[in-house]
């Protein structure tokens, strides 16, 4: 075998091998020989995660390690990741961001629950960013912030930011395709308006006053698990000009996959719900209600409105709330029975999955309504409410559903007990 096989490889190949090495392994190659001394200093990705930093922190000063590596580094850093740090590291970010003018993928995760260290304004000068992932911190874009022209993916977890700032931030990042926000800080209970023409994925989890999409015609996947959305005291009669569900869904015509929590469903239904949307949601394949009260007319009618307006729906997933109010139950069951008269076009629906089912009259009527309409149904799977439904009751539910009228003769019906898998 030839001597020094690795050094005879073309530079490009060596650089690429170093790129796949963890940072400290790459640093160690500097002591292989003089030829190798400065090969590592051009690696474009600097990853300081807990695998490399975790067992060093008791012995070494993390700040001086990062300082040193950045000082020796030459060329562009296109990916920078810091995921081991506590809030004490924060003040040093300023110095480091100066080295990251070419950075495309930036990840900063601070482990400091409850506090929101201010992230340096220098962040807003990194105009090459395509991916930004922040955990814990406060963001305050300066008025002169021009936007991230190339930003495609944005992940914010526990990042404190005023709703107005967030709105203008999104607006200034025209290439955004993916936005995931989990729990804004205390500042942010506000009104979200999202104007993102290239957005394909949007997920929000946390407190919120209101949410509205202005320009999101490509949005395909959305999940909203919201709390504290503004509600009026009582549900008024439906008036098309005010309808929230109409207003909201007309802005996202390409939606394919939608997940709503109870608060968001109530929010959509808050000004009354039409029987069906004027324009079908022709791309919708997957619809999920993560907790819905099937005994509340507003929520049920909102769900039915979405189902009726989604002729290509293939899969429906529901987590039922269970019993809260016995009086509503009767009214809702009656309402659902009446709906049987109007046709629901469900020619593609193949799978229905319902969790936390307790066999309430309204729940049963809801399922019967779907069985009556879904001509292509293959599987109805019901998971009964934990500790609440006896084997006998499950059997009775099964009998009742199995003998009710069904549009699809070959649909399999399964009712089983909750189990931890």
């Amino acid at each position, binding site marked *: 075998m030839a001597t020094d096989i*690795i050094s005879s490889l073309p530079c490009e190949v060596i650089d690429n091998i170093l790129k*796949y090495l963890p940072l400290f392994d790459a640093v160690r190659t500097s002591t292989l*020989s003089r030829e190798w001394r400065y090969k590592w200093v051009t690696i474009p990705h600097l990853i300081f995660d807990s695998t490399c930093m975790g067992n060093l922190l008791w012995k070494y000063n993390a700040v001086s390690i990062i300082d040193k590596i950045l000082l020796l580094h030459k060329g562009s850093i296109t990916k920078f990741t810091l995921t081991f740090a506590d809030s004490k590291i924060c003040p040093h970010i300023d110095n480091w961001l100066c080295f990251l003018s070419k950075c495309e993928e930036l990840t900063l995760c601070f482990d400091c629950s409850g506090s929101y260290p201010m992230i340096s304004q220098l962040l807003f000068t990194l105009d090459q960013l395509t991916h930004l992932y922040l955990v814990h911190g406060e963001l305050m874009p300066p008025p002169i912030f021009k936007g991230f022209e190339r930003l495609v993916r944005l992940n914010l977890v526990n990042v404190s930011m005023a709703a107005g700032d967030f709105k203008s931030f999104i607006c200034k990042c025209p290439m955004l395709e993916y936005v995931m926000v989990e729990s804004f800080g205390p500042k942010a209970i506000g009104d979200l308006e999202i104007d993102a023409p290239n957005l394909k994925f949007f997920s929000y989890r946390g407190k919120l006053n209101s949410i509205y999409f202005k320009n999101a015609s490509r949005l395909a996947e959305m999940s909203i698990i919201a709390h504290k959305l503004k509600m009026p005291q009582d549900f008024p009669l439906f008036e098309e000009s005010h309808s929230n569900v109409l207003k909201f869904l007309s802005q996202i015509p390409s939606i394919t996959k939608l997940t709503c929590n109870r608060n968001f469903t109530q929010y959509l239904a808050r000004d009354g719900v039409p029987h069906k949307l004027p324009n079908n949601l022709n791309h919708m394949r997957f619809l999920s209600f993560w907790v819905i009260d099937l005994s509340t007319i507003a929520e049920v009618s909102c769900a039915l409105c979405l189902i009726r307006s989604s002729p290509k729906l293939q899969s429906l997933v529901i987590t039922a709330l269970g019993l809260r109010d016995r009086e509503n139950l009767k009214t809702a069951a009656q309402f659902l029975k009446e709906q049987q008269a109007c046709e629901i076009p469900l020619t593609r629906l193949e799978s229905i999955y319902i969790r936390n089912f307790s066999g309430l009259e309204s729940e049963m009527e809801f399922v019967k309504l779907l069985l009556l309409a879904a001509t292509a149904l293959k599987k109805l799977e019901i998971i009964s409410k934990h500790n609440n439904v006896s084997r006998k009751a499950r059997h009775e539910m099964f009998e009742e559903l199995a003998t009710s009228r069904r549009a699809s003769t070959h649909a399999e019906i399964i009712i089983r007990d909750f189990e931890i898998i």
Partner: protein
Amino acid sequence: MARKNRNPVGKNVDPEAQKKKTRTLTLKSSDGQEFSISESAAVLSIAIENMVEDDCAGGVIPLPLVDGGTLARVITYLNKHAEDGASDEEKRKFDEEFVSGMEMGVLFDVVLAANYLDIRGLLREVRRRIADRMKNKSVEWVRKTFHIESDFTPEEEEQMKKEFAWAWEGVDSDVDD
């Protein structure tokens, strides 16, 4: 070199693609061995594709930088990736197994061939594999494995080790894998 985006072979019904599947090429290694391969598999190598397009092939394509053993391996890879109906998952599994059994010397031969023939997927796979082997290994292990001769004095080496002491934490004790 021209960068071309190739559609994965399969499902394609255009007559040109059909022709490529049935047409075979002959690749000749540095030690004179000849291998037949369908054109659709061969052109997953951008270098070969360019040679075919420039029509400098003339039936047999000589590859003076690749020996027979390495070329046989590369052809196995190309055939799998040109296979009709092989799912991405299947190919991924194949890639994993393909490189996992290779000794370091073989990995270097293959990485050189993949670089020369411009086969992106294979190049990525082998580079990652080489890096995986180097992870957590001592400087001495890397020197021995890659036949690198140190030209540092022991004092210089000691000094550098001190300077980057944190980079030596958690290094495996030398065991051959």
